[in-house]
């Protein structure tokens, strides 16, 4: 029988006991595994590669979240202080007080086109399933750029904002596919543009990728990423 990922809401209901055992096994019970694809930034800024993928991000430690449908994900991203901070740029090491935990923002560079959130959470000995990751980056445009699009892929559901404006929402259990969710045409202002997302995972691997497409759907590469606004 082919293995498959299950909708997190039904997984919780149907396999609650098993999920609890699974969660126990994945947190605290084993030594953290270093994130082989992620490393702390060593330079002040980073340029995208020829494929345009943004490889420097601030990642917040995962928040428990169950469910991948449109309404559940939209409700999840409105919880906590984040909805009023969509243009804020946290600093590496900054902490956030949540209901039952203090979570930390981590600045990372990824060696791949995507950001492996499974690696990230596992390296911190955190849950990787039924969780929500907040991620932020800052794109510094050399000039005003009109009619560009944010193009993302995520495992699983995700919601994206550019300079505080929600531009993409993709829902359901899904794998990361390059240019899966694509925004309508938008304008990047000259200077700092804050891109923020919430990625919600049900079970299994979790990651995301993001780049910016020009008016002809070609990847933009003439910008830099600097995690200072």
């Amino acid at each position: 029988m082919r293995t498959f990922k299950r909708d997190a809401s039904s997984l919780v209901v149907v396999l609650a006991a098993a999920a609890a055992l699974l969660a126990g096994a994945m947190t605290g019970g084993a030594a953290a595994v270093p994130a082989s694809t992620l490393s702390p930034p060593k330079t002040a800024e980073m340029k995208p590669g020829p494929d345009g993928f943004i490889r420097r991000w601030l990642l917040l430690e995962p928040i428990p979240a169950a469910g991948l449908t449109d309404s559940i994900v939209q409700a999840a991203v409105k919880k906590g202080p984040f909805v009023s901070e969509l243009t804020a740029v946290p600093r590496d090491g900054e902490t956030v007080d949540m209901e039952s935990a203090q979570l930390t923002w981590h600045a990372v560079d990824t060696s791949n086109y995507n950001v492996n959130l499974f690696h990230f959470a596992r390296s911190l000995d955190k849950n990787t399933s039924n969780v929500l990751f907040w991620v932020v980056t800052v794109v510094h445009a050399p000039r005003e750029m009109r009619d560009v699009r944010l193009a993302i892929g995520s495992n699983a559901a995700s919601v994206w904002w550019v300079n505080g404006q929600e531009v993409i929402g993709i829902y359901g259990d899904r794998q990361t596919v390059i240019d899966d969710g694509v925004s309508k045409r938008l304008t990047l202002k000259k200077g700092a543009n804050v891109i923020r997302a919430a990625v919600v995972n049900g079970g299994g691997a979790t990651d995301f990728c993001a780049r910016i497409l020009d008016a002809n759907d070609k990847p933009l590469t003439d910008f830099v990423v600097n995690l200072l606004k």
Partner: protein
Amino acid sequence: MIPVGPIPPAHFCRREVIAARIPTNDMRHALLALVWGSASLVLALDGDVGIHDPSTVVVAGGKFYTYGTGGTSLVSDDGWTWRKGTALPLRQLAPDVIHIGDRYYLYTAANSGQTKADVSMIWTKSLDPGSPDYKWSAPVVVASSDGIEDANAIDPGIFLDPTDGRLWLTYGSYFGYIRLVEMDPKTGKRLRPNEVPRNIAINSEASVMIYHDSWYYLLVTHGSCCRGADSGYNIRVGRSKKATGPFVDNIGVDMIQGGGKLFAGSGGRVIGPGHFGLLDLGDGVQKFSLHYEADLDRGGASVLDIRPLFWRDGWPVAGDNAKEGTYQIESLRTGTVLELAVEGVPVGGRRTGRGGGRGGAPVTDGGPGGLFAGTGGVIPPQDPAAVSAAWPKGNLDLRMGNYMSQAQQKWTITPVTGSGGYPGAPYFKITIAGTDRTLAATAEGELVVLPAFNGSPKQLWRLDQLADGSWSIMPKSGPKSVSGPEGPLSLSAVGSSFATLAKFDPASEKQRWILKAP
């Protein structure tokens, strides 16, 4: 060739005629077929479309022209609604016309005996009778048959080879061979008048060549004409690597021995297709003109039609214009389908426990009543009226997703009366099946789903079948300015989960869509 008399006015009568024939107690099933089925009505052209042996449709000065037996003429502003045009000075048989340089060359023929005939050429610099350049030249005979030889010099077809600029004329009708002679593209006359014509096919008529992907195709019409619904006309094709043949069909039979792969036969309510003519609209959209010997919905009259032409395994395929019906609209590029951006509900409802709809019977997975056992009954299609009640009011986004047979993923394509059309078809509205939710273009070159259709050009859509059989979907009126290359905008799968409007790119799969019956 028979003169064409008055025919019933068209159009959109076809659906009404069908409905009128259906007994009341069967009406519900007929309506269901219209809503849910893909085998719905095929639209022919609108307006005055009576013609026999039409020439290849040519576009000149933004208008579409075709000429038929008896010197008749039809003209259209959009390729959909037609009216009578100005008659030719030569009222002969089965013309064909081609545009080369600043001239339109027209070839037509007349019999002076059973097989004694002449093909004549006339030319003009304009096809618009209102233009000062509308002046037909004196006729020049370019090919003949003497009444004894195995040929009948009528039904000319003219072809300009795109690879080398050579001009070829084919002609002939049943009494013997289809013949080929080379013409002078500078004058429209025979290049070597004394050269013996080459025989390339036999016992057919209405021959014409086209070129595609390194092959020359010879299209001819087999069967009998001029007998209304008893006409056996059908269009056949063979191909060759050279313009001079031999033209061989798909099973290896040379057309000089009667070969010919069926390209278009009778179907539906139209009988006897004949007289193929290529109409290349660019951007990967090819269509063909033809006539049917009998349109049963127009009293069996001979009428013009324009249909999509696409290609499969190196052979031309006669497509059908978009049909009214309900479809999933799938991106050829991504495999995802257009959907209203609302939270979908699984067909049959969400599972709430182990065993799903069976109430969670505690049985082993895979066994009776287990996780994979289903409900034990038929799960009906989602009722759009019920499902859509939970959707937000007002304008909603369009997105794309994996097809799950949900209500927000099924689109009804409906022709719109009185809003014009394009070659072969009227404009359509595209709505979520069973609702008024209407797909529309925005002023910013994006897409939106409106609560209801109001007839705006941004809500009217053109569906053209492309060379590979997929479809392009273009709004009648897009935004005035969107960055990027100029040109008509087409529905484009820029992402797996997102569609936009962008200039059609023949080299890309982004603007290619598959219409599937849900």
